[in-house]
Every structure is written in C-alpha cells, then in structure tokens.
C-alpha cells in the first residue's frame, strides 16, 4: 500500500468528523453548543494572549513533577520489593489495596486541606501515578530470567551493579508499560484536581468559564486538554522506543 493511501485511510475520518462538527454547529444558537468556529477563535485568542499558555504551563508542570516523583518512587520501591521476596510477600496485600483506592477520592482530602497551591496537586498526581509504575516494576523484576540472575551471582558483581546492570534493564520494558498506564491517569487527576479547586490551570479555565456561561471557553479548554493529552501520549510512545531499542530489536514483542 502506498504511503499516501495509508495517510488517507488514517485521516479521512478525523477530517470528516471535524467538518461535520464545523458545519452542524455553524448556525447553532444553542448556548451550550457554540459553533466550532467560535470555539477555535476563542482558543486562539486566549492562547495568543498568553493567559491560556500560562495556565497550560502551570498544569503541565504539576503533571510533570507528579509523574517524576511517581517514577522515582515507583521504580525504586518496585526494584526492592520485586527483588526481595520476604518484603514482597509481606507488602503484597497492602500494595494491592492501595492501588484499588480510586485516585479521585483523595482529591478533596489533600487539596481541601493543603490548599490551592501546586504542592497538593503534585502529591495527588504522584500518588495516583505511582501504583501502575510500582506494580509493573515488581512484575518486570520478577519476570527476569533466572539464568540471568544466576550469572549475576556467579560473577559476584556488587549489589549496586547488579541492580543497575541486571535488574533495571531487565525490568525496563515493564516499567515503561507502567508509565504508559500512569500517563492518562495522571492527566485525568491533573484535570480533576483543578476542577475541584484551583485559581490557575487548564481545569480552572474550564470550570471558571462554565460557571460564567462562557461556553466557547469551556469547549476550548476541553479541546486543549484533549489535544495536549493526545500529543503527550504520542510523544511518550516515541521516547519509549529509544531506551528500549534493544528490546524491540530482539523481537520479544508478540506482534
């Protein structure tokens, strides 16, 4: 199949849907569903005035820091728990319980108590994202071939080296799978934390405009969050391939 046809096949539906929305809403007088042209105009206006960009930067910084904490804690704890069997056995019920706590349930407690600043939002995002990463790291460590472990033992390499050169690379594909799961959860919690209470951020923009019936702004904010979320996911899929090149090359993927 030619590249052009492939591109056409992939994009026609998107184009059709956008056009459908554009024309179906073009003469809409319904307050809740403003014309798409108005929504996009609002989006461009608020982006170029810098207001929305500032909010977006605030939200994405929270997301990035929360995710960073989650990755550091998740991988660190995951390597230890996965490698040390007694620890794993003892902690197993607590980990599977903590991961079952619906992440949104913590929003009122953390943000209601610690206020509107970025700190509480980052904690909430980190807590929500840590469990997929932790669980996948544990699974990844456990999935390392026993022969490879025994090699490490036979060569008597130091624990630090053993973790860095044997356990971490072996678990890396699973770890990335965990981060991939954590990413949309993080974005959702980011939005929820701002919709709950904030004075800044994309979620605040959405909430504030809807409570003043500026529906075009509400839609613009929602579209922005969606597009940004989509591109973050896409970018992550690209980045993921770099450190895992050896893994994809080895053909271990069942595709």
């Amino acid at each position, binding site marked *: 199949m030619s590249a052009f046809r*492939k591109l056409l096949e992939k994009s026609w539906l998107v184009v059709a849907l956008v056009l459908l929305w554009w024309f179906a809403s073009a003469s809409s007088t319904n307050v809740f569903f403003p014309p798409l042209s108005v929504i996009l105009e609002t989006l461009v206006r608020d982006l170029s005035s810098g207001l929305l960009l500032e909010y977006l930067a605030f939200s994405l910084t929270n997301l990035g820091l929360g995710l960073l904490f989650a990755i550091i804690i998740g991988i660190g704890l995951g390597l230890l728990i996965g490698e040390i069997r007694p620890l794993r056995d003892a902690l197993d019920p607590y980990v599977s319980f903590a991961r079952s706590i619906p992440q949104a*349930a913590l929003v009122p407690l953390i943000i209601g108590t610690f206020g509107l600043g970025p700190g509480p939002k980052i904690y909430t995002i980190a807590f929500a994202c840590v469990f997929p990463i932790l669980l996948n790291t544990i699974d990844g460590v456990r999935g390392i071939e026993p022969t490879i*472990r025994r090699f490490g033992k036979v060569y008597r390499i130091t624990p630090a080296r053993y973790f860095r050169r044997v356990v971490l690379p072996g678990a890396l594909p699973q770890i990335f799978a965990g981060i991939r799961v954590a990413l949309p959860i993080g974005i959702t919690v980011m939005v929820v934390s701002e919709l709950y209470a904030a004075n800044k951020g994309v979620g605040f923009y959405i909430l504030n405009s809807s409570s003043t019936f500026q529906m075009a702004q509400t839609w613009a904010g929602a579209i922005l969050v969606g597009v940004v979320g989509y591109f973050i996911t896409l970018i992550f899929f690209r980045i993921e391939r770099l450190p895992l090149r050896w893994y994809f090359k080895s053909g271990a993927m069942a595709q």
Partner: protein
Amino acid sequence: MSTFTIPVVVPGAKACGLSRRARLTISRLAVLVALAGAWQLLYISTLLPEVAPDLVQIVLALFTVLTTSSFWIAVGQTLFGAFAGWGIAAAVGIVLGVAIGTSGFLSRSVEVVVEFGRAFPMLALMPVVVLVIGVNARMEVLMVFLSCLWPILIQSIAGSRRQDQAVADTVAVFRISPFRKFWKVTIPSAMPLISTGLRISASISILVSIGVGVLSQTPGLGRQITMAQEASRWDLAFAYIIFAGLVGWALNSAIAAAETKALRWNRQEA
C-alpha cells in the same frame, strides 16, 4: 564483602521451623503494626495537620461508618453509576469494536479517533455535561460511559483483528461459512483482549463515578468524602476512602476470578 544473596525459589521446598503460612501472616501483621505505629508517631509529633485523626479515631470511624445507612446507600449509588455506565460501554464497545475490527479498512480509519478518545480526559467535559443535563445520576452514568468506552473499543478492535495465520488457513481450507467463522473463530480469539478491556474499564468506572461525585456532588461515596472533609472529619473521610479502596479491590478480584474461569482454555501455560 558480598552478603548479598539472590533469592532462589525451590518449588516445593519446606521451610524449617514455622510453616510458610504462619510466617507470612506474621510478617503481614508486622507491616500493619509498623504502618499504624508510624502514623501514631507522626500524630504525636504534630507533623500532621491539625485535623488529622489519631489511630483510635480512625478505627472507631471504620466501625461507625459501617453502621450508618448513609454509607451503604452511598456505596450503592456509586456502584450503580459505575456499573450502569460500564455495562452500556461494554455493550456498545464490544459490538462496535468487533464490527470495526473485522474490517481492515475501518480499523485503520478509526485508529486516530479512538486513540484520541482514549487520551482525552473525559472529566474535562463534565462542566458542559452538567450544564446540559444537570447534576443527577444520569449525568454520572454518561460520564462513566464516555470514559469506559474507549479501552473496551480499542481492545475489541485489536482482538477481532488479531488472527493466527494457521487458523485463517484452516478456515479457508474447510470453507467455513462467514457466519460460523465469526462465532467460532473471531469471537473466541478476541475474547482474551476484550476481557482485558473490560477489566481496565471496570477500575476506570469506579474512579470516574467517585470523581464525578467529588466534583459535582452527585450522591455517592465521592460526595460523602467531600462532605467529611468539609466538616473537618478526617476520621470519617479516611474510613470512606479505605472502604472505597476495598470496594475497588473486591471488584478487581471478582473480575480477575471471572476472567480466569471464562478463559481457562486460553491459559495453557502458567
């Protein structure tokens, strides 16, 4: 220098002294005691915010909450919203997904749209939905549906696209009718991926239904937690969160058990 040992598990090996089970129970209880102790230490050292309850208050709240009818009603409302949205999403997602997945052209066409839908945090649309249909159970079900649809759809498309070459050849050689092929080949081979989609979206359904409650005050666990926090009753909020976790955990285990039972044929190894 190397006191570092790599745990090697020998199947069937009996540990000496206490039985494995007993040691496991003891170690797990020790963790619980350590967690509780750490909390109490933090409480005494006043590092925690003032509203934080001490251990006794949390334990008491756990029992008090269980005896109140508002708790059970809230659990019911949250589960209803989650289940209704999840069920509709399952029906729509599987039917649409299998229809799309059996056509190569359609599945290539919807790829971008479906990926976008999955990456889209549907709760961002909630303010609009609230204004259009109001704060009620219907809105909650709609939000859960919108969030649960995508994982099920994606897994159903992927599942019905996947086909073993040998199986496809066999179908061609035996000239099996398309209808029969659909029910006997496509659907069973799609089942493992579909059930993964169902499991992923089941946990999303609880997350969204509580999230909607937290944000819009629809009746349910999310609202109870918000109200407890606003009344500075951290002990109650803690109890609600712990039970919300238990509900999620029970749901996950139930689905995992059902999955193992339904898909036993697919689990030759392990």
